[in-house]
């Protein structure tokens, strides 16, 4: 599933550098200047986390770093707000278990 906007009546679509990253061990591509959550969304991945107690699926909600719905483990670090965290080359992104631990 590709959800990219390639043509827009108002916004000029910029040429952007492709960026490789890993999600749960698989290789994905996104673009420079976007966030982890937007790159995943473009690839059709909308479930980013699970609620801690009832394991309900969660996506992002605010996309500007206000809520905590998009927490993931990024390069081993838990509770990263993926909706605002810029995508970087070779990032390792994973769904996190529970509250996340640093050990």
């Amino acid at each position, binding site marked *: 599933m590709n959800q990219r906007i390639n*043509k*827009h*009546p*108002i916004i000029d679509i910029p040429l952007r550098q492709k960026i490789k990253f890993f999600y749960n061990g698989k290789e994905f591509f996104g673009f420079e200047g976007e966030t982890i959550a937007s790159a995943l969304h473009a690839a059709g991945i909308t479930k980013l986390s699970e609620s801690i107690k009832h394991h309900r699926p969660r996506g992002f909600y605010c996309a500007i770093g206000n809520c905590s719905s998009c927490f993931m483990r990024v390069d081993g670090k838990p509770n990263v707000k993926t909706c605002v965290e810029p995508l970087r080359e070779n990032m390792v992104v994973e769904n996190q278990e529970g509250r996340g631990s640093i050990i």
Partner: protein
Amino acid sequence: MLKISGVPSNKDIDQVFPSQERLEKGPVVIVECFETIPCNPCYTACHVGGIQAFKDITDLPTIDFEKCNGCTMCISSCPGLAIMVIDYSYHKDYVKMMIPYEFYPLPKEGEWIKGLDRRGAEVVKVKVLSVKNTKYQDKTQVITIAVPKAHYKKIRNIEAGDSNAKS
């Protein structure tokens, strides 16, 4: 009706139309602005005094239909896309309408496309006469269409090619 569904009634539309006599003289502006919101770029865009000065920024625009020459400068300046220009004198069977448009794909000159009413329903096929996008318009295209006279008062939008709302 307008406040419930977003569709202005025939009565609302009649209120912003000039007299038949003025319509027949040539191009003239129709401003479908029915609410006192803080906004006056239509006045700023008008250089012939057709849209009169605002006392308060929340006033509804006051049109002097005699001064308005239908130049279309105000169409793309309206943030609400509420302005169009009508030339009733264009042809004995057709009215020329200039409407703002901000979607892809753009219609092509010479093609017949769907003319939509204020609910977005197809009324009649209309012919695209020109597609204008100058720097001044800042991406709000002004599309000129020829509309059969029997339907002109209903037409307010177009659907070009595969509607991008449905693609």
